[in-house]
């Protein structure tokens, strides 16, 4: 079979999602670390539309967008499935992946902004978490996928496990553990799963990186 390469960035939750899927499925791959201020010519060639990581390159062909990549991995390497076989259960999983993808930009907005804009993003992030807590398909289960991690866990993991760092750096709280007991338990389960624990950026290093980026972004917007 053709080799697999992943253009990634150590601090990116989107990269992390793909790495988790690759590791869970036991797919060997070459990790190509991109320097984001200086993106490689290959990356720009592989993802001309967004110019972003992650990009998975299987043989000569690039696949872009983290959750599109995860679906591609699922179809190409069926071992350790990340989606159920029943079409309705698959639809439920995809519904939650879409929900997470549509609502999670609010979490990044909390980190990127201040004032009223940040407060609105914080409210929208909290609303996303409340809905997941109340309606999410993980009631009474260890993971969204039941006993094992599935595509919804991977999608949400890329948000939940970065939220703490974003709260710390922005000084803005989104996750109220007392109001979100099920999600809180889910975070503990997910973080302690070996594949995930071994493939997370160092928290201190991540916070430093995010703090630097945030300062740069906020000072350049005020100086305009």
């Amino acid at each position: 079979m053709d080799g697999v390469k992943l253009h990634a960035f150590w601090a990116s939750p989107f990269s992390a999602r793909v790495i988790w899927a690759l590791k869970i499925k036991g797919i060997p791959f070459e990790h190509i670390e991109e320097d984001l201020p200086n993106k490689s010519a290959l990356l720009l060639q592989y993802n001309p539309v967004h110019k972003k990581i992650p990009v998975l390159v299987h043989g000569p062909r690039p696949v872009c967008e983290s959750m599109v990549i995860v679906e591609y991995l699922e179809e190409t390497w069926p071992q350790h499935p990340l989606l159920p076989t029943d079409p309705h259960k698959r639809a439920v999983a995809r519904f939650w992946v879409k929900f997470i993808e549509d609502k999670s930009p609010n979490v990044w907005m909390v980190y990127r902004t201040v004032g009223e804009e940040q407060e609105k993003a914080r409210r929208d992030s909290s609303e996303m978490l409340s809905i997941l807590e109340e309606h999410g398909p993980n009631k009474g289960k260890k993971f969204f996928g039941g006993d094992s991690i599935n595509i919804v866990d991977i999608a949400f993991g890329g948000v939940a496990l970065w939220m703490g760092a974003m709260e710390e750096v922005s000084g803005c709280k989104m996750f109220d553990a007392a109001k979100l007991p099920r999600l809180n338990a889910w975070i503990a389960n997910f973080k302690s799963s070996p594949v995930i624990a071994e493939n997370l950026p160092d928290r201190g290093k991540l916070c430093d990186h995010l703090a630097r980026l945030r300062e740069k972004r906020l000072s350049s917007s005020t100086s305009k």
Partner: protein
Amino acid sequence: MIGEIETLSKSSGGDGRAEEGGDEQFARQDGALKTFKELNKKPTHHRFGLGRTEGIVLISWGFMEGVKLLGTWPSPFSYRVIWALKLKGVKFEYVEEDLGNKSDELLRCNPVHKKIPVLIHGGRPVAESTVILEYIEESWPQNPLLPQDPYDKSVARFWIRFIEDKTPVFFRFCHSTGEQQEEAIREAKKVLKTIEEHALREEDKFFAGDKIGLQDLVFGWLAWLLQALEEVVGVKLLEASEYPRLHRWVQNFRAHDVIRSDLPEHNAMLAYFKRIRETFISSSTSAV
């Protein structure tokens, strides 16, 4: 307003003051265009592809496998599902929802978003149009609407994600004026340019080749709804000379038998979007 567009407008950052329902909201009953006032604001049932007697028989014994679609005119999210079902030859019952007075069934079947479309198959609901499309593809394998090859499938999914993320730009184009609208026009043209340069090949009739597929259905509104928005706003975005491939794709999409047998009527759409634009503009000026 029209189902999922409400959500997209809100998440795009604050200009989503959606209007729901209203006496002049249109629906079809037995092929004739009527307002909800005429229909007394009751959900309307259509049995696509069946005669009346067949329809009743199907519903009475076919409950477990029955297919029902909760939708609304002229929602592009609704229409893409209707076309997918028709392309697959799936018989279904259509229920026109009154968004100003959502049915208990809709609220029960989509408690998270409370939006159309919702597909109910054998009593089990599926929400979110792109999720419904994948569900239809997997449940009825005849006449495949996605490529077989996983890589080609990933390309279709990439573009589906792309256009879903960019749709709010076009509604901002319709809802706004002045500088906000100028910005929306610039962004919309960038989106069209990206599609023209990266998504379409010279030799292809549709996105994935000679056959219509899910990507075409999701992009579909660019072939019928965009034109109504352009006319209401008085600004043309999709010029044939600037976007020849996209223009050709629009013609091919509209000419497809299944699509053209079920396209919202243009003048009714003009009236509908004109009213929506006026509502947004007057509520934004009165807020100043």
